[in-house]
């Protein structure tokens, strides 16, 4: 029945088994979409990396390019209209963008798997879940239908779907939202990949079910020592599971930081604005802090820093020069490992 548990110590998750080199590294990735109205620059030079056993949270609003980056990594971007004019996606040192299709197919699903947001539209409604789960084994490992079904039942047990044996030939609509998301997780876990990309895995779920699913995901990650890229806009979920965070705005990473640092001392006005707009107990009855204005149109991203029309700190330089993602230091110059900010005034934002 219901369990009451303490959240596990993070120390177990970090560190252990690192050979130093990142599992996946995205370097200066650009993605654009050619539309009738012009070129929409969805991703404009994104850099990030994930190690085995590490959780990277990519935080951003809709249109910030967080999902497009993930689709580019998986190689499921619609091309055309999508185009990757420059950049590298290195998986264990090999560039996936220059790879042959056949080679890439070997990585996809087997080494890197993805969990999608809306399980009902990600699953095929006319095939039983057992068949869809078994497909991974039939295609990648050449198992027979019978063997694949046995494996599918094992997987469903693994993600704690009750009565897996009876439910293996049920169809997606016969499952509840939380159960469907478990099936998505099972499908991603099937071949025990090294890296999982979870694109808003719990956004469509209720909070009590969200807690179950996130717990399951964290447990499986610990067990198989996988890297996890968690794409979300929920600052609460991020705080609960992430090791490090990359905040995206208008196709760029505007801030990177280890999770504790980011919440304590944001170094970019956008991050600060997001954190301050969370309703807090001591502010009840007062106005919420709100970032003014709207996220930019990707067809015409403002010149200079894309955030400048909404930024309380913007000055002339912000309207002309694009700020680079620079390492952030303490006031006395000591390095803060893993931290970076793409703001001309990060010093003032962090220390001021």
């Amino acid at each position, binding site marked *: 029945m219901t369990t009451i548990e*303490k*959240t596990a110590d993070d120390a177990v998750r970090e560190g252990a088994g690192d050979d130093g080199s990142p599992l996946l590294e995205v370097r200066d990735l650009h993605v654009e979409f050619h539309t009738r109205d012009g070129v929409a620059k969805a991703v404009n030079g994104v850099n990030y990396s994930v190690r085995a056993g590490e959780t990277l949270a990519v935080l951003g609003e809709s249109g910030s390019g967080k999902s497009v980056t993930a689709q580019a990594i998986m190689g499921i971007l619609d091309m055309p209209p999508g185009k990757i004019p420059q950049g590298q996606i290195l998986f264990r040192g090999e560039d996936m963008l220059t790879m042959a299709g056949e080679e890439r197919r070997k990585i996809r699903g087997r080494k890197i798997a993805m969990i999608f947001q809306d399980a009902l539209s990600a699953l095929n409604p006319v095939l039983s879940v057992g068949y869809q789960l078994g497909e991974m084994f039939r295609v990648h490992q050449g198992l027979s239908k019978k063997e694949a079904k046995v494996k599918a039942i094992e997987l469903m047990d693994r993600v704690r779907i009750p009565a897996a044996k009876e439910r293996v030939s049920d169809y997606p609509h016969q499952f509840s*939202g939380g159960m469907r998301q478990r099936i998505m997780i099972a499908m991603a876990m099937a071949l025990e990949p090294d890296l999982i990309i979870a694109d808003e895995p719990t956004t469509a779920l209720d909070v009590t079910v969200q807690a179950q699913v996130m717990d399951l995901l964290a447990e499986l990650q610990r067990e198989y020592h996988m890297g996890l890229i968690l794409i979300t806009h*929920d600052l609460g979920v991020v*705080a609960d599971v992430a090791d490090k965070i990359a905040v995206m705005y208008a196709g760029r990473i505007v801030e990177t930081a280890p999770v504790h640092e980011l*919440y304590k001392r944001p170094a970019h006005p956008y991050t600060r*604005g997001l954190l301050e707009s969370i309703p807090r*107990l001591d502010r009840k009855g007062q106005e*919420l802090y709100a970032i003014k204005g*709207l996220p930019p149109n990707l067809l015409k991203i403002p010149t200079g820093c894309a955030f400048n029309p909404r930024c309380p700190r913007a000055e002339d330089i912000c309207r002309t020069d694009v700020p680079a993602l620079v390492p952030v230091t303490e006031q006395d110059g000591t390095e803060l490992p893993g931290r970076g900010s793409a703001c001309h005034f990060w010093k003032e934002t962090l220390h001021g």
Partner: protein
Amino acid sequence: MADTEKNEQAMEPAADATPNVTEVETVEAATEDEAVAALEAKVDRGEPILQVRNLVKHFPLTQGILFKRQIGAVKAVDGISFDLYQGETLGIVGESGCGKSTVAKLLMTLETATAGEVFYKGQDITRLSGRALRAVRRNIQMVFQDPYTSLNPRMTVGDIIGEPFEIHPEVAPKGDRRRKVQELLDVVGLNPEYINRYPHQFSGGQRQRIGIARGLALNPEIIICDEPVSALDVSVQAQVINLMEGLQDEFNLSYIFIAHDLSIVRHISDRVGVMYLGKMAEIGSDTEIYDHPTHPYTQALLSAVPVPDPESREGRTRIILTGDVPSPANPPSGCRFRTRCWKAEDKCAKEVPLLAIPERFAGTDSPAAHESACHFAEEKDVVHA
């Protein structure tokens, strides 16, 4: 609230009246004119404006094509009672499928209730018709969840916001409407010159402002907001919440704020009701519910909410419920939460717990003394633990 009374009602689960809600002062109106006049009356701040008593909505499940037989019912709302006071915000939280949106539709008289009453200024609106019903509908307006589908793409903003005036011409005479619509646009923070634009020319946050302007058009007294910000981006949510709070002060509105985001509900609400499977599990002021919850479901719900503070993740006690919400077509006997509850005992399967102040807290002035529908109500601080 005597014990005997409670037991009597417990034996009879069909009519589980909540014993602790106040008596409704009904208005007897013989003619339609009297009824309309009574609806125009002002209600003082802090007085109940809307009183819901044992509201029930069952959606029939039928079988057969030619001769339909009813084989059951989805018990979407199954006996709910609460008061809404003038000028306050009542938050209603719960998981999907708990009936919160059905409550909104019932209050709007968009659905007919299976049983129970909704008193607006002392008149049961479930029985009104004609002019009196129109007068009620003028005063209770709604803001919908999805700003993308709740605005007609073929109508201009001016037509959308002005449409309520077509049905209620007494509010704004024809020649005056354009000016009125522009005023409303200004009130919700949009440029009045946008009056001839179409919804697709606006972002999600701006569209929700249009939806709010439409809700305000007839100067209502109550606005029912069904998940008004859940479809919006994080940085835009705060803007819309601030707007709604500002409008409440300016126009003296009462809100029923339905949402699943517990932190936003806490921010905006004066009182909060927690629903589970068609019933109210717990209701009280925001501090009573958030800091002193006594119903196990509320405790689980609050503890499951991810806290945007990484410092709290180590050592935070989380109650993780197993399983999903049972089907409202076949709810568990007795307490509906018992199938997922860690405190459940035999009594919970037999007796429906009443929404009342738990005996152990009754008469004390502790903040745990608020209405909670649990046989084993117990205070447990989950947010700060």
